[in-house]
């Protein structure tokens, strides 16, 4: 029956498309995940939502690109880009966050907004408005998986995400330093009474988060391209991902990132590309309404021992 | 569950109870914090709940005031069922409480804290407030003076204008008490009101509780200061691991073997 055949064809095509959407979603989602991890690191230690997180990503990518354009070998450029960004992250804490001792969290968040504006402006002055590209680490030839295809760079992003996730998870859950860092955000004065120095921890977290951002920026640059204002949109998505994951959980951040990526891509593919971002947000609302603390959100400890 | 005979007597009188809680149960994941616990408070009574740490006393308060939904059971207040109500509705019905882990409004002054306590006894809404109608202004004044009166009762008038967060721990406890009283409750739940008070202050508190009771307010008290509990309670319930292990007059309870073993210990002064 022709109708049957037609139906079958639509079915097969749809299946093929969905596979591609899924691949795309995972690719984009793992980029969001890396950024979300950066948010989580600073949030876990200081309680601050760092609006300059996207700028760390931008710095990593842009420094890498300009070094590469000046014939610095890839590996050396990578190391320098990450190191420089890390230093900038630490400096940000030292120069802008620490002096505001005793300020409320909202105030600190506004400071990071200021930092984000400043860094972006400096980026524009240094690198101009144009977008730059970086060659893919292992070529551009697409990898075909079933009926879907991805670029090899995706694998780099995925592997990086996985490594960062595992490392950070172990760090926060298993190491003393990781626990000490979390303690700072939960109760700063009690942490000090344990001999933990919150300002040192905060600096470490900014440095760590900056280096995460930079690594992310470098591995994603070949696919997302690099420009002085690339951070804004990525940070927004990363923030969403982090919240979905519960804001303080590293696996949550990654799960959140992947979820946002896949939903966006499915939404764009199956429903409407115009409403892509809206679809992602609507579904994310649903997630939050079912689990108000995010998928991996911590237990609500606020009502204990009233 | 072994319920003492004296308790059975009370049970038959439950009809006249102000607060009547029947077979309360609360699970937190695997932990059963309160387990088929029934109790009641009659008008004008001071009733105490005691028990080891983690026995479920605060949880009972949380159930009565609607902080946590019940896993099972029923709560009646003044003849009406209240266990499905929201906390603010329960407060409107006339139940106030203080908190073991203080919940003062640190962002407000001492007197403003108490003025919030007057919330359900006043009614200016957002519109009349925004327009600052004469009715709203005069009500505001009445709230203020009522609040100052409550502060006077607990001896904090001199600190009325200070931020509540600047009060020492003990004073914050008293502030919570004043705030709860401002609601003009029929039933007042006090969670460890004497914790952090020195002996003299505890005796003042004791007098204050009598005064409140004499004003027609029933009191449900959780406290580890046995001097206070045994001095003022008309009736005592003892919880252990969420279950009732004894109930009776202070005298009975002090002699109860189970209670001594689980909670009081041998008092060898």
């Amino acid at each position, binding site marked *: 029956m022709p109708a049957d055949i037609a139906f079958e064809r639509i079915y097969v095509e749809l299946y093929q498309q969905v596979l591609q959407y899924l691949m795309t979603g995972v690719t984009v989602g793992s980029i969001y995940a890396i950024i979300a991890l950066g948010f989580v690191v600073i949030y876990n230690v200081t309680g601050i*939502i760092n609006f300059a997180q996207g700028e760390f990503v931008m710095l990593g990518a842009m420094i890498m690109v300009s070094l590469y354009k000046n014939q610095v070998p890839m590996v050396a450029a990578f190391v320098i880009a990450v190191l420089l960004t890390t230093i900038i992250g630490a400096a940000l804490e030292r120069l*802008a966050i620490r002096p*505001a001792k*005793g300020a409320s969290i*909202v*105030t600190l968040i*506004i*400071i990071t907004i*200021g930092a*984000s*504006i*400043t860094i*972006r402006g400096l980026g524009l*002055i240094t690198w101009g408005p144009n977008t730059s590209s970086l060659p893919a680490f292992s070529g551009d030839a697409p990898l075909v998986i079933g009926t879907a295809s991805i670029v090899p760079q995706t694998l780099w992003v995925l592997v990086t995400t996985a490594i960062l996730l595992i490392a950070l998870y172990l760090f926060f859950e298993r190491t003393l330093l990781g626990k000490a860092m979390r303690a700072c955000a939960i109760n700063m004065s009690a942490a000090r009474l344990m001999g933990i120095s919150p300002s040192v921890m905060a600096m470490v977290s900014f440095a760590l988060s900056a280096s995460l951002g930079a690594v992310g920026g470098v591995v994603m640059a070949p696919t997302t391209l690099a420009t002085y204002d690339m951070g804004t949109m990525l940070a*927004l998505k990363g923030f*969403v991902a982090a*919240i979905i994951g519960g*804001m303080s959980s590293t696996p949550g951040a990654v799960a959140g990132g992947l979820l946002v990526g896949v939903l966006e891509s499915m939404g764009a593919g199956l429903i409407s590309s*115009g*409403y892509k971002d*809206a679809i992602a*947000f609507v579904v994310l*609302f649903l997630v*939050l*309404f079912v689990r*108000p603390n*995010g998928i991996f959100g911590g237990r609500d400890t*606020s*009502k204990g021992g*009233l | 569950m072994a319920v003492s005979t004296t308790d059975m007597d009370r049970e038959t009188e439950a009809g006249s109870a102000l607060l009547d809680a029947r077979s309360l149960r609360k699970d937190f994941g695997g932990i059963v914090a309160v387990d088929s616990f029934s109790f009641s408070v009659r008008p004008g009574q001071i009733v105490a709940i005691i028990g080891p740490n983690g026995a479920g006393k605060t949880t009972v308060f949380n159930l009565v*005031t609607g*902080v946590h939904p019940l896993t099972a059971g029923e709560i009646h207040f003044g003849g009406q069922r209240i266990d499905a109500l*929201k906390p*603010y509705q329960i*407060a409107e019905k006339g139940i*106030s409480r203080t*908190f073991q882990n203080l*919940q003062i*409004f640190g962002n*407000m002054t001492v007197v403003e804290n108490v*003025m*919030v*306590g007057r*919330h*359900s*006894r*006043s009614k200016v*809404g*957002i519109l009349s*407030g*925004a*327009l*600052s109608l004469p009715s*709203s202004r005069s009500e*505001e004044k009445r709230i*203020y003076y009522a609040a100052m009166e409550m502060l006077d009762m607990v001896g904090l008038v001199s600190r009325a*204008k*200070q*931020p509540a967060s600047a009060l020492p721990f003990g004073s914050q406890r008293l502030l919570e008490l004043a705030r*709860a009283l401002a609601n003009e409750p029929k039933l007042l739940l006090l969670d460890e009101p004497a914790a952090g008070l020195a002996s003299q202050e505890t005796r003042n508190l004791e007098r204050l509780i009598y005064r409140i009771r004499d004003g027609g307010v029933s009191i449900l008290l959780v406290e580890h200061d046995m001097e206070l509990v045994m001095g003022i309670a008309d009736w005592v319930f003892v919880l252990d691991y969420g279950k009732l292990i004894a109930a009776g007059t202070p005298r009975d309870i002090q002699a109860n073997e189970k209670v001594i073993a689980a909670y009081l210990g041998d008092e060898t002064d």
Partner: protein
Amino acid sequence: MRHQNRIILSALFVVIGVLPFVFTSSYHISVMIFIGIHAMLAIGLCLLMGYAGQVSLGHAAFFGLGAYASGILTASYHVDPWLAMGLAAIFTGLVAFIIGKPLFRLKGNNLAMGTLGFGIIVYIMLVEMTDLTGGPSGLRGVPSLSIFGFTFDKDIKYFYLVWALALLFLILSLNIVNSRVGRALRSIHGSEIAAEMLGVDTNKYKIQILIVSAVYASVAGSLYAHYVTFLSPPPFGFKLSIEVLVMVVIGGLSSVYGAIFGAAATTLLSETLRGTVPKLLSGAGGEYEIVVFGVILMVVMIFMPTGLTSGTLNLVRRWRQEKALRVETREAEDGNAVTGVPRVPEGRTAIEDN
């Protein structure tokens, strides 16, 4: 209203009334018009954030809804602009009411993210509902306002209209803040659980104040629409939400007056930089302006973490205290000399001042 408030308000009235005679250029007047529009947004957000403690990262959405509702009703359906402004406010308030309930199930950061999502969804709708909104290309032909044949065509007239409304909102907000409702809001901020236990229907008040701030934003949006007479989505995006947040915090979270100062400070700062940066750094362009803006934002927040209004007051107070202290320590130690505790948030209930 309290005595102190009356004095500050009268002063504000006078200053604002006189300003257009001091700064007469149409540029200066438009800057002040935009400050007024931003102030309405900031006052609303201040109620929501500074008093009720509920963060919103989507305030631009209400602004956009107001602007577009007015714009569409007047440009496409030729409704009278004033009526349109009222309908827009009702519509926006209704939207706030509808989203309020699910939104306030979320707390803290998640609420921030929920409002952010709301903002983005509204933005996307403005972009995508092309038939209604004109889409990314924008909506043209929004008329200017007029009343009884009196057109608000000259900037100076518009200035007085905008500021009359802004001051009205300010007064309403001060009244709310100093009423039972304001106290309930702050108690929610302090401890939601305790507030609820004292009979405060926390959800109701959160939604009410969300509606109030949404209506303020809507009116601001309508005023924007009839002033610029062209609407397109970008001014109603995430960036504006953040800017309003910055205004509120710069002004001082817990002061309604602060919202006005915050709006003024941020708008003036970026406008002043446009003129001064190229003079200071010769040949410096827009890039340098935003860098300087970012740096100043940080510096202000670092040195005045409680915002400009209370920050300045605190500096003065601290300076005075330091002097007083030096005297005091030398004086006899007289028990409990407890006066003027620092960091008492101002603008708060103190009926005795009456």
